[in-house]
């Protein structure tokens, strides 16, 4: 029996401290030349798709625009259509929010991208209920948190009805949307764009199992990857779907070297660059909810406890619910590791490469992970724009091919072809 094949996607590096803008090789994240270089390299690497994240409000820290990370990005649809012009097979995935868009317009934009790219579009559905982001939109942040997936589901149902209507009259009414008319765009080369989803809550997993073609997961370790894989694919049966109808892709980083020691060293160098002294303090302030600018990033953690009620950072997803517990855990960790400084602690807890080694070793680690059903592949999050993928494509991809786990050519023109998916009906 043939080996399970690895799927690869690539995230264009953008707004986050993981993008190392201070590196002399770091280019612009908005110049079109950067997108061309990144996309063409991903296509040389026979990736399934590239994907762009989205932000609809600049992040703030302590009431001011966060200035330590890369800021600013181009419009998703526009840049993906332009990338379609300089690539031929690469899938084009865009994160588009279901809260601040209307289905008729969004369905038209995605249908246009799918037609104009010859069937390479993917939609990463995300939700936001956030009044902070809503301040940029005429309807404001009106959505209650518990309505997020309701609206997302209704948005998707509405969009799908439009995409597949093939000229038939639409008379669609739901809590969120009323649409009457005739959608003018015929079904696209893929029937409709590939659907990607990334929510990890129970509601998010159900939504994914029911509707998604691909899932971005945050489960990096083998065990939690296997747990997520089994859980999500196990939920599909009740929706009449087979496990292979979803491709699960955890976000993954990597550090390479000619020797293992060199790879470790590269990895450490990247982590240090990702967590500047100022970034270390900003991370700490997010947990502590206080201004800690007087603290030395190379000194110990603050003695004071976090302010649990503070909302110091806005526009960024918070993963930590109990800051005092986090602080205590961090203090214990810092002590256990022989007295880590603030910056060392932040590096230890936030910035870690999933795969470190020689190209052969990294290929073997990734292959083992996929063969053990911890995922179907990976979405690579390189630390450099636009060249962050170059070394991977040049050195790791041939090793994956050598292991028999990765394609040596594209077998079809559409993203559904790359993912082994049928056209929807």
């Amino acid at each position, binding site marked *: 029996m043939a080996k399970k094949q690895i799927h690869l996607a690539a995230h264009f590096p953008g707004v986050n401290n993981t993008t190392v803008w201070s590196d002399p090789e770091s280019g612009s994240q908005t110049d079109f030349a950067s997108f061309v270089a990144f996309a063409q390299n991903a296509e040389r690497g026979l990736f399934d798709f590239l994907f762009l994240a989205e932000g609809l*409000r600049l992040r703030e820290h302590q009431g001011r625009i966060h200035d330590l990370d*890369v800021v600013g990005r181009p419009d998703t649809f*526009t840049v993906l259509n332009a990338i379609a012009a300089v690539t031929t097979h690469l899938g084009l995935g865009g994160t588009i929010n279901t809260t601040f868009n209307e289905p008729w317009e969004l369905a*038209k934009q995605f249908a246009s991208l799918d037609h104009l790219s010859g069937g390479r579009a993917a939609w990463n559905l995300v939700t936001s209920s956030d009044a902070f982001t809503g301040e940029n939109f005429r309807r404001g942040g009106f959505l209650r948190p518990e309505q997020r997936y309701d609206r997302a589901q209704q948005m998707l149902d509405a969009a799908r009805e439009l995409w597949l209507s093939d000229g038939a009259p639409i008379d669609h009414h739901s809590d969120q949307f009323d649409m009457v*008319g005739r959608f003018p*765009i015929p079904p696209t080369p893929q029937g409709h764009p590939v659907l990607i989803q990334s929510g990890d809550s129970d509601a998010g997993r159900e939504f994914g199992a029911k509707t998604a073609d691909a899932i971005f997961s945050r489960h990096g370790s083998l065990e939690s990857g296997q747990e997520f894989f089994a859980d999500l694919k196990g939920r599909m049966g009740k929706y009449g779907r087979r496990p292979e109808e979803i491709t699960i892709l955890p976000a993954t980083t990597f550090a390479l070297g000619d020797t293992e020691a060199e790879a470790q060293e590269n990895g450490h160098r990247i982590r240090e660059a990702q967590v500047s002294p100022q970034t270390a303090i900003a991370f700490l302030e997010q947990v502590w909810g206080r201004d800690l600018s007087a603290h030395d990033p190379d000194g110990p953690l603050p003695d004071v406890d976090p302010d649990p009620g503070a909302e110091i950072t806005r526009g960024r997803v918070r993963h930590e619910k109990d800051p005092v517990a986090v602080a205590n855990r961090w203090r214990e960790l810092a002590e256990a590791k022989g007295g880590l400084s603030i910056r060392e602690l932040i590096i230890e807890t936030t910035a870690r490469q999933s795969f470190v080694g020689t190209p052969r070793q990294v290929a073997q680690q990734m292959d083992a992970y996929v063969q053990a059903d911890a995922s179907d592949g990976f979405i690579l999050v390189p630390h450099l724009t636009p060249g962050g993928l170059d070394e991977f494509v040049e050195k790791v991809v041939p090793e994956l091919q050598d292991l028999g786990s990765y394609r040596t050519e594209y077998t079809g023109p559409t993203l559904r072809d790359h993912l082994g998916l049928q056209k929807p009906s």
Partner: protein
Amino acid sequence: MRTAHLAVEVSGFGRHPEAWRVAGVPRQALLTPAHHIGTAQLAAQAGADFLALPDSFDPDSLLDAVAIAARVAPVVPGIGLVPMATTTHTEPFHLSKAIATLDLVSSGRAGWEAAVSRTPEEAAQFGRKPAAPAADLWREAAEAIEVVVALWDSWEDDAVIRDVPTGRYVDRDKLHYIDHVGEFFSVKGPSMTPRSPQAHPLVVVREEPESLAVAARWADVVRIAAPDLGAAHAARERIRAAVADAGRDPDDVAVLLDVEVLLDADETAARRAYDDLGEHPAQTLRVVGGPDEFVAVLGERAVDGVTAVPLALPGGLRVLADEVAPRLLAAGLRVPADPTATLRGRFGLSRPANRFSGV
């Protein structure tokens, strides 16, 4: 003496409702990038300043015009790209970053034709509000343009500093909240997308009674329809007066007359082609004939330029490129286009100063 501007508008297989019959390819071809690249290349070869791409949410529209412009931009150099995007059912925040990004991917060749969605059918597709009178729609459009342009200024050009010693990627003092609160929108800002190569992509507005004030305040190019050159000239005077009343220099606003065309090197062939299409009432001045007839329209200098609107594709785009363009150059009506110029540059407009600079 100023030279004349030339634009080309392409929608579907042409403006004539029977154009699909003579297209020689199925309607499906309009969904392919090859079709749009082909027409954009012809328009570029004709030396056109920009390609106008109409759009709407009407049942007879097809692909999104901003998407088409973005798909064409990297592979068709040397021509401006002006998609239409309506303001009635869309968010100005999204529009602002979409057009700014078109400017990025085209290296400064983007424009935006601001328009309104006026039909009950379009309103029903969104289900959020009923169709409104044109005056209300254009009042809303004016506010939408105001928001879009403010967002274009919300990043100063040198906001990205990459200062390693202080760890700062941007100078946050050069990013600005627009804090717009108006009749239709409240938008905080700043934009997600940094200031684009042209800073303000070219703003195009079609003149109609309700849009005149919007054009006077915001447009770099005003498109007009008129049955003859006399009426066109009168429209130009009317627009220039309105621009002056709005406190702007009329010489910064170009008035372009729509001219429906069906051109052939051989005049009789053009007329025969038109007879094959069948009679259809003209929406504006129409030239069915040879290249000289079209050149004569620009030669009259009744307006600042012309937007050629083919009745049916190719409908004379090839003639425009091969026959008309050289005649316009020879007559001194046009100068050879600088392939590196921005679209604003083609219209003699400088890159605007940032309203927030020094604030």
